[in-house]
Each structure stands twice: as structure tokens, then as C-alpha cells.
């Protein structure tokens, strides 16, 4: 049965680790990395890709525009 699947790509080097995307994701897809990026932030990354519905909430609240969202019927 076809179902809607989403996925996100995060520009982790431009991410400032504010975690607003984590707070706004209804599917708990995103987590803060334990590692730091070049800027010294615990960047956000899609820890649980498979739970993404492509709702784009994360991208819409991201102050730095570092999240790109995709969605497809699979």
C-alpha cells in the first residue's frame, strides 16, 4: 500500500544548534548531534529518518534556513 514518506536534509555546517526544529517536529525525527560542527554548535541531524512525514514544520521554524524537505508516495 502506498504511503507518504518524508525526508529532510540538514546543512549541518550552517546549523547553529538552536533545537527549535527538534521542538517543532511532531514525529521526533531530529536530534542534536553529540559532535560539534565547525562553528562549535551541536548541530541538528535527522536521527530517525524513517519517521519523517515531510510536514516541513522543522524547516518552517528554522531561523537559518538550513533544512530542505522532501516528500514522496512510496
Amino acid at each position, binding site marked *: 500500500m502506498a504511503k507518504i*514518506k*518524508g*525526508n529532510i*536534509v540538514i546543512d549541518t555546517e*550552517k546549523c*547553529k*544548534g*538552536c*533545537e*527549535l526544529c*527538534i*521542538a*517543532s517536529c511532531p514525529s521526533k525525527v531530529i536530534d542534536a548531534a553529540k559532535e560539534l560542527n565547525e*562553528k562549535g*554548535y551541536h548541530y541538528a541531524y535527522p536521527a530517525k*529518518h*524513517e519517521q*519523517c512525514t*515531510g*510536514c*516541513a*514544520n522543522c*524547516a*518552517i*521554524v*528554522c*531561523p*537559518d*534556513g*538550513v*533544512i*530542505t*524537505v*522532501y*516528500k*514522496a508516495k*512510496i
Partner: protein
Amino acid sequence: MEETCNMQEIVKPENLVYKKSSLLLDKTFTYCPGCGHGTVTRILAELIEELGLQKQTVGVSPVGCSVLLYAFMDIDFQQAAHGRAPAVATGIKRLLPDRFVFTYQGDGDLAAIGTSETIHACNRGENILIIYINNGIYGMTGGQMAPTTIPGMKSSTSPRGRNVQTMGYPLKITDIAATLPGTYYVTRQSVHTPAAVRKTKKAMRRAMEYQSLNRGLCFIEIVSNCPSGWKMTPVESIKWMEENMLPYYPLGDLKTPAGENTNQ
């Protein structure tokens, strides 16, 4: 494993749902982590792109955290002296009436040093858009009290909290703007949740369309957070904003064109 492969397959141009506007240059915003400025800057660029206004837009950036706004967006820009953006925008719009002209200002810029320019541009009904970010503090200079700092709120120049007896009251300049005959559409929004961002974008789109119809001044306040100035994490600052700022600065339209109800 198979699941992961499927996931990667989704990342294809035809499946794109959201990406940042191509009007945003490949630079990192100079805003602090979690600051609402970035979100507003982002959706402003999206709207200029979506409405096809890039070639005829002249923006005016203020003094404050968004002083370098022009460095992030691929449109013509003028950087104004502190508080003077509405006067600069007036000069631009009067000489180039068919261009889309907006100012982007913070609360210190717009509601303290630039009060006169703000009120009079509104009162003349200049056909411009004023985007006003209210985070209740002077962010750029390090967290001093702003005209909008709410009673009891701490800042570096009200370290024991704003005492209205000696420091005066927060200025609801958007409410004043709504009373002036020259303003056409006055609203107060926020960008702290996905739903709020969507509503703000809708309000901004409406204002931009009004300008193309020469309807007069549109004024959009966006109540926002300042994690650095408030000395909180971004997520804490959102919660604090909801609990403390929004009761003082309630969201919604303050003035809508006759016959139109834009409050959803």
C-alpha cells in the same frame, strides 16, 4: 538497510517540499542561534521570490541586529541611520512609486529613536511595508532595556526588572499605528511555531499585495525572542515569550481593510 535506501531515494528534486529561497545568498545569518529574526528574514525572501518582486524591490535595513540584512538577500537595499528607515523608505517610494519598498526594523530602532519617523510615515499613509520585530530588548548592543521591555523584565539597564514607576511603560506602538488614518493594514504576529510562521507569511503576503494596489502603509509587528539578550536557550525563550510577551502583546490583526476580516 532497505528502509535507508528508500529514504535516500526520496531526496529528489521532484519530491521537494521546502527549501530556502534562492534570494538568500549563500551566507550564514549573523543572528544568534534560535533568533526569530532569521525566520522573518527567511520568509520575507520567500515572499519576494514567490511574488516575483525581486527586480523591483528596494529594502531598507535598520541599525540593530538586522543592520546587515542587505548582505543576506539578493535585492537592492539601503541601510538607514538608527530609526530613520521609514523616512528613507519615504524618499525611495516617493521617487520610485512603482517599486516594492519595505523597512525592516527592531523595537529600539522603530519604537524609541525612530518613533517620530514611524508615526509620521504611518500618518502620511506612505505606500510602504514596515516589518517590525519586537523582542523587548536591545539585542545588538548587548541586552539593554527597550521601549517594549515588559514590566518586571530584566535587562542590562533594568537589572532588577523594569520598574514602570521610574522607567515608564512599554510602548505599544502598533496599537498607535492602528489608530492613524494613513495605515491600511496593521497586524501583530509571531514566528515561534510552524503555525505562527505560516500566519505571519500570509499576513506579509497580504501586505505586499496591498502595496501593489497603492492602498497605503501596512504595518506588521512580529513578537519575537532574543535568547542571547534574555539569557535563555532558544527553546526556553520561546516558552518565556508565550507566557510573558504574548499576554502583553496579543497576536492578531489590529486594523483590517473595511469589509475584510483577516483574523482566522
